[in-house]
């Protein structure tokens, strides 16, 4: 764990006037699982695309596996594997044909490639589906193929963009297990995810990215301690007669950083200052809210950190989209519109 697998120096990507990635500087150590967290459009995927040589940086530089991203892009591509959010596979081809096609592009010798395909299919328990067309696979089966496809050339670094998005819990767990296995075989894993639990469970270190910049960077535990040590506190509030209007009132308090609705009755409120809890309770009572219970999250979760660091951004986005909050597995609940 001495050398850096990836070094970013002022890496910047602009699309016209919009700066997707803003002077990002960052070192990712060899053999670590590094998590990128951030709201939609924060610049996670753009960063990954640049590091995979799929997109050219506007300015700045980066070294991937010791090679310069721009000058030695061909060398970089030999060292990396990509598990993209859009699965990289052809529906009309069988699992083996897909793997074989990509393996050939990596110029893996024929016999070695066949052995590798069998080995990887075994890793994800899919030997019996070797000669079945991808179109007959479930999403979970496809994602397992998508993951092992990236492992074909035995990469030093593997990029995983939202690897468990839309998967059932069983497959999600299995993908996480595979990710740990990959990491144990000396592969650096770069993970982007919305799933806080996943980032927390897998990552050695996490960077929370917002507006193309690093908003926070540390181990999951240190990030959580950060919240505990600051004057930011996170409360759970159960209100039996919860209304959108009431949520709006709470949100409009100056001390409140973010409000996330968990379900019909439960709110998660992150607030600043010692008087925050009093003010929040006053507002709820004033609006006729019936408080069933208040829980003080002493052991804050990564979700709390995420909301505390990026809370405002989410509100801005919610103002644009105003989508209703759906609580999907493991995903960050969106804050309500202020």
């Amino acid at each position, binding site marked *: 764990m001495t050398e850096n697998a990836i070094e970013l120096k002022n890496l910047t990507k602009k699309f016209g006037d919009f700066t997707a990635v803003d002077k990002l500087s960052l070192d990712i150590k060899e053999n670590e699982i590094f998590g990128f967290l951030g709201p939609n459009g924060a610049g996670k995927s753009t960063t990954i*695309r640049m590091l*995979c*040589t*799929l*997109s*050219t940086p506007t300015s700045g530089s980066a070294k991937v596996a010791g090679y310069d991203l721009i000058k030695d892009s*061909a*060398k970089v*591509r*030999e060292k*990396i594997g*990509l598990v*993209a*959010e*859009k*699965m*990289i*596979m*052809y529906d*009309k*081809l069988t699992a083996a*044909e897909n793997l074989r*096609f*990509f393996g*050939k*592009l*990596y*110029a893996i010798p024929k016999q070695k490639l066949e052995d590798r395909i069998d080995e990887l299919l075994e890793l994800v328990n899919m030997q019996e589906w070797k000669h079945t*067309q991808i179109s007959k696979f479930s999403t979970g089966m496809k994602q397992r193929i998508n993951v092992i*496809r990236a492992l074909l*050339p035995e990469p030093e670094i593997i990029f995983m963009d939202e690897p468990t998005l839309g998967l059932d819990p069983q497959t999600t767990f299995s993908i996480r297990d595979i990710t740990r296995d990959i990491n144990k075989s000396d592969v650096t894993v770069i993970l982007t995810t919305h799933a806080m639990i996943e980032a927390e469970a897998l990552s050695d270190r996490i960077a929370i990215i917002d507006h193309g910049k690093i908003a926070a960077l540390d181990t999951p535990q240190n990030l959580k301690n950060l919240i505990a040590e600051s004057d930011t506190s996170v409360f759970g509030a159960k209100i039996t007669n919860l209304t959108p209007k009431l949520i709006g009132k709470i949100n409009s308090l100056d001390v409140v950083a973010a409000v996330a609705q968990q379900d019909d009755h439960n709110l998660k409120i992150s607030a600043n200052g010692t008087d925050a809890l009093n003010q929040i309770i006053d507002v709820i009572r004033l609006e006729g809210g019936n408080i069933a219970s208040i829980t003080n999250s002493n052991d804050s979760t990564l979700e709390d950190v995420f909301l505390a660091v990026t809370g405002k951004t989410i509100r801005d986005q919610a103002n644009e989209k105003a989508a209703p909050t759906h609580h999907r597995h493991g995903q960050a609940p969106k804050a309500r519109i202020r």
Partner: protein
Amino acid sequence: MIPMDIIKTLKDSYHVMIKDMIELKRNRVELVTLAIMPLLFLVIFGFIYPSGNSHDNIQMGLVNLDQGAGSNEFIAQMETMNKQIESTTKNSSYMSFNNYSSVDAAKTAINQGKIHGAFVIPPGFSNNVTNGQPGNIIIYVDNSNPQVAASIEQVSSGTVSGLNGVLAENNVLKLGNAANQQINPQAVIAPYTPNIVTTIPGANNYLNFLAPGLMIMIGMMAVMIGIPEAFSKEKETGTFDGMLSAPINHLSVLLGKTMALSVRGLLQCIFVLAFAVLLFGVTIQGSLLLAFFMVILGIFSFIGIGIMAVSLAGDQSTGTMIMNLLMFPFMFLGGIFFPISQMPWIMQEISKLIPLTYAADAMRKIMLLNANVADVSTDIIILLAFGIITMAIALPLFSRSMKQ
């Protein structure tokens, strides 16, 4: 190192091509479409074009306002003439006659679409003929349909001039007899006799004209529509990122896909040829080998345009739109369906800018006239130049678009 790179690029192109071909092979709907499209083109374009055989049984009105001996004889001869023509061609007559009592009744019938024109024999026709005056006939033509109108004018004047010939022959014989001279009436009436010998044996067949051009056009469509489509599909499903994040030259993706599409285009050309020969009696005089070389050259000349479209268009619908914009002038001004020499001069000038014109021209010469490479060398040079120039513009655009 450089030769190694080239070998790797070619190998990767080959892998991409094979992958694309397997995908095509597994797509039954696409395969069927692939075979049906050439057939459809042949049937549709082969039969909608007004060919020599199409003016059969044109419904004509007949209004005899004279009712004299002369007009009755004229009508009788015209009907015989119509049948005489009939016996020399297929089992159909050129015109069918319907009697009307007045010009107005005939005009009403034209307006109702029952007939396309009418012969009107004016009063006094018989008198004029017997007194050595010209016998005028009026032919009404419905020219709201230009194609039918042209046919009627052609057939009517042909029939009337045939009648004139018969009459003139009799008159010349009479005059000869009166002067006690042996005369060949034909030599007096029509001293010049054209004997038409065609380059292609057998009757004129529009499909003979159509098939070679269609082969080139279908090859062109395969790459021009195919390239933007193939790239957009991979971009939109995300598989493109898989190839581009692998250590391969981006050009090998382009090369591989183009090769797969060219094979596909070539396959369709074979379908066109097979259908044309087996189902439509098209005859081939020239070398098939040279013909297929021409198809490949034709396809090559369109690749650059396809790459430009895929590089400039962000998504599939834009790419398809750009291609449609180009395809229509190519199809209709490239001399596939209509001979360029029959177009107005400005269209002829535009058609000279279209590579399809040269490819179709060369193809026709090779297949129908047994032309050799030297005969079509100008076409070959123009196509090569067009292909190389467009590709020289397209490749940098492509490289740039790959690095968004």
